[in-house]
C-alpha cells in the first residue's frame, strides 16, 4: 500500500510494451537492411558481394571503388549528379511557387466556382500520369523541346494537385483576420500572399519542397523518355543505364546508388525537425 510519505514508482513496463518495441525494432531493421547492404557492397568487390557465407562488414574496405566511380569515362557520375541537383532544385522551386499561389487562392480567397475548381484539381490526382503521357509527349515533340529539361520542369510551374491540396490545408489555418488586417493596411493580394500568408505556412512549404526534391530525385520514367544523351541524364536514369550496360560491376553500381541516396538522407536529417513540425501542425488543421 502507498502512503503519503512513500514516493510513487512509475508503472513498470508491461510485456505488451516490450513486444511492441521489439516488433518496431524488427520492422525498422527490415527497412534498413537494404540500405546497409548497399552501403557495404559499395566497399567490396564483386566476389566479396556474392561470397557465402555473407560478410556483414567489408574487409578490406575498398575505397578505390569510390575513386573509380568519380573517374569513369562511361559513367559521368558527377555530371549526372549535377543534373539531378538542377532537376530536383528547379522542380522544387517551381512547385513551391506555383502550388503556394494556387493553394492560397483555394484556401484564403473567395471567388465564384472556387470549390468546384478545387474539386476538379483534386480529381487530377485520380488520373494516372500514363494516360496523359502520350499527348503531352507529342506536344513537347512538336515544340522541338525533347532532349531538354523543359518538358520535365515546365509543367510544375503550373502546379501539382497533391501539393496544392496539401498546402491548401495549411493556408486554411491562417486566420482570416490576418489577411483582412493586411487588406485594411492597403496591401495588394499578391503582397498579402508574399508578406503575410506565406510566412505563416513556411514549414509546410519546406515539406512540399522536400517532397518535390525527393520525388524528382528518384523520378525515372519522364527523364528516360524525354532525355537522350548520357550527359543530360539525372542520376536515376544514369545509374540504370550504367547497370544495364555494365551488369557485372555491382560494386560501382552500389557506390553510385549510395552517393545518389546520401543527399536525400542528409537533407532529411537537416530538416527533420521542420518536417515533424509541419506534419504535426497539418494534422491539427
Amino acid at each position, binding site marked *: 500500500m502507498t502512503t503519503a510519505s512513500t514516493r510513487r514508482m512509475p508503472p513498470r513496463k508491461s510485456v505488451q510494451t516490450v513486444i511492441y518495441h521489439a516488433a518496431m525494432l524488427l520492422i525498422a531493421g527490415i527497412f534498413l537492411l537494404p540500405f546497409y547492404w548497399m552501403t557495404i557492397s559499395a566497399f567490396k568487390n564483386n566476389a566479396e558481394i556474392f561470397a557465402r557465407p555473407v560478410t556483414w562488414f567489408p574487409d578490406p574496405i575498398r575505397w578505390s571503388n569510390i575513386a573509380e566511380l568519380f573517374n569513369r569515362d562511361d559513367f559521368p557520375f558527377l555530371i549526372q549528379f549535377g543534373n539531378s541537383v538542377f532537376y530536383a532544385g528547379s522542380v522544387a522551386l517551381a512547385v513551391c511557387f506555383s502550388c503556394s499561389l494556387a493553394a492560397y487562392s483555394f484556401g484564403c480567397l473567395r471567388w465564384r466556382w472556387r470549390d468546384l475548381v478545387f474539386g476538379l484539381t483534386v480529381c487530377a490526382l485520380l488520373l494516372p500520369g500514363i494516360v496523359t503521357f502520350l499527348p503531352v509527349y507529342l506536344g513537347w515533340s512538336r515544340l522541338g523541346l525533347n532532349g531538354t529539361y523543359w518538358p520535365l520542369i515546365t509543367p510544375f510551374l503550373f502546379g501539382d494537385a497533391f501539393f496544392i491540396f496539401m498546402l491548401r490545408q495549411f493556408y486554411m489555418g491562417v*486566420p482570416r*483576420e*490576418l489577411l*483582412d*488586417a*493586411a*487588406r*485594411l*493596411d*492597403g*496591401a495588394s493580394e499578391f*503582397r498579402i500572399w508574399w508578406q*503575410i500568408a506565406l*510566412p*505563416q505556412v513556411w514549414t509546410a512549404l519546406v515539406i512540399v519542397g522536400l517532397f518535390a526534391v525527393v520525388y524528382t530525385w528518384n523520378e525515372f520514367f519522364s527523364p528516360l523518355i524525354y532525355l537522350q544523351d548520357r550527359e543530360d541524364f539525372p542520376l536515376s536514369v544514369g545509374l540504370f543505364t550504367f547497370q544495364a550496360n555494365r551488369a557485372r560491376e555491382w560494386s560501382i553500381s552500389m557506390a553510385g546508388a549510395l552517393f545518389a541516396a546520401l543527399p536525400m538522407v542528409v537533407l532529411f536529417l537537416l530538416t527533420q525537425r521542420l518536417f515533424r513540425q509541419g506534419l504535426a501542425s497539418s494534422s491539427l488543421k
Partner: protein
Amino acid sequence: MGAVQLTGVRKLFGALEVIKGVDLSIADGELVVFVGPSGCGKSTLLRMIAGLEDVDYGDIRIAGADVTELAPARRGVAMVFQNYALYPHMTAYDNLAYGLRRAGMARAEVDARVRETAALLQITELLPRRPKAMSGGQRQRVAIGRAIVRKPEVFLFDEPLSNLDAALRVEMRSQIARLHQELQATMIFVTHDQVEAMTLADRIVVLNAGRVEQVGTPSEVYHNPANLFVAGFIGSPAMNLLPATVGQGGRLTLAWGTTMAGPACSSGMAGQSLTLGLRPDRLSLVPQAQAQASGQVTLAEHLGDESILHVRLPIGQSLTVKASGDVAARLGDTVHLGFDMTHAALFGADGQAMRSA
C-alpha cells in the same frame, strides 16, 4: 468629418439574407455600439462598413463620400479584431508601420507616427517585440495602436475585448473610452457583452436576425425597450415579461389574478392581451400582506453586494428578483414579491412597446 451613413444596406450569402435592410446614421465623433446575440449580423455589418464584405443592396457613406465600392484601405477606416490579428512574424513596430509603408509614407514620417502612437498607448517598450512575446492585453494595445497610427476617419472594433480576462477587459474598456475622448473620432464597436455596450456607447444599436431592433442611448434602450426582443436581450438579468390582460377601468390583470394599475392602459383597451415588462430590480421582497405575487425560490445567486433570486410562481411563471446582498432567502424558501411600476414597460400583442411609464 467621420460621419457614417448606411442606407438600405442588405447582404445575402447565397439565398440567405443576413443583413435585411439597415438604415443608420452615425454622427462624427460618436461611439456607437452594435449589440445583439450571436449570428445576428453585427460583425457582418461592421465588415461591410470596413469593405471586407460586399454590399449587395444599398450604400455606405463615410464622411459624405460613397464608399460602397471602394477597397478597404481607401475608405479611411481602421479595424481592431477580436483575435488581435497582429502579423506574428513582425515586431510591434513593423505591425504599426506596415499600413503607413503601404501608403508610401516617408521612413522618417513613419517612424515619427509609430513612436507618437506608441507613446499615446504606452507601448513604446513593446515596439521591438513580436506578438508571441506579449500578453493578451499588450497585444490588444498594439492592435489598437495599429488602428490609431493610420489616423482614420472611423475606428471599427470587432469584439476586441472578448479574448481578455475579466480584469483586463475592464482596464481596456476604460482605455478605449479614454481614447475616444482624446481622439474625438467616430468609433463603431461590436460586442455581445451588454456591460461593454452600456458603459462605452453614446448610442446602442440592437441587432437581431439582420435587422435593427432599436437605436438609442444606453438609458433609452434599457428603460424604454422598443420591443420584446430588446426588453429580453438588454439587461442582465433579463427583464421579467409577464402576460397580462387589460381589465375594466384600464387595470392590468396578471396571469395569476393580481390586478394593478398598468402604464399606458385605458378602459378602451379592455380585453386586450399584453405583456408587462419589469426589470428584476423593480421587484422586491415584501411582507405577505403587501405581496403581488408569491412563489418558491428555485435558485439563489448570492453575489456579495446583491443577490439574484429566481422565483417560481404556483402557475409556473418564473420571475427574477434583484435583491440586496444580505437577503437570507435560500433554495426552496417561499418569498413574497412586490412590484414597483416605475419604468415598467408594456408590449402589445405584436411585441412592440406601447409606452413606458
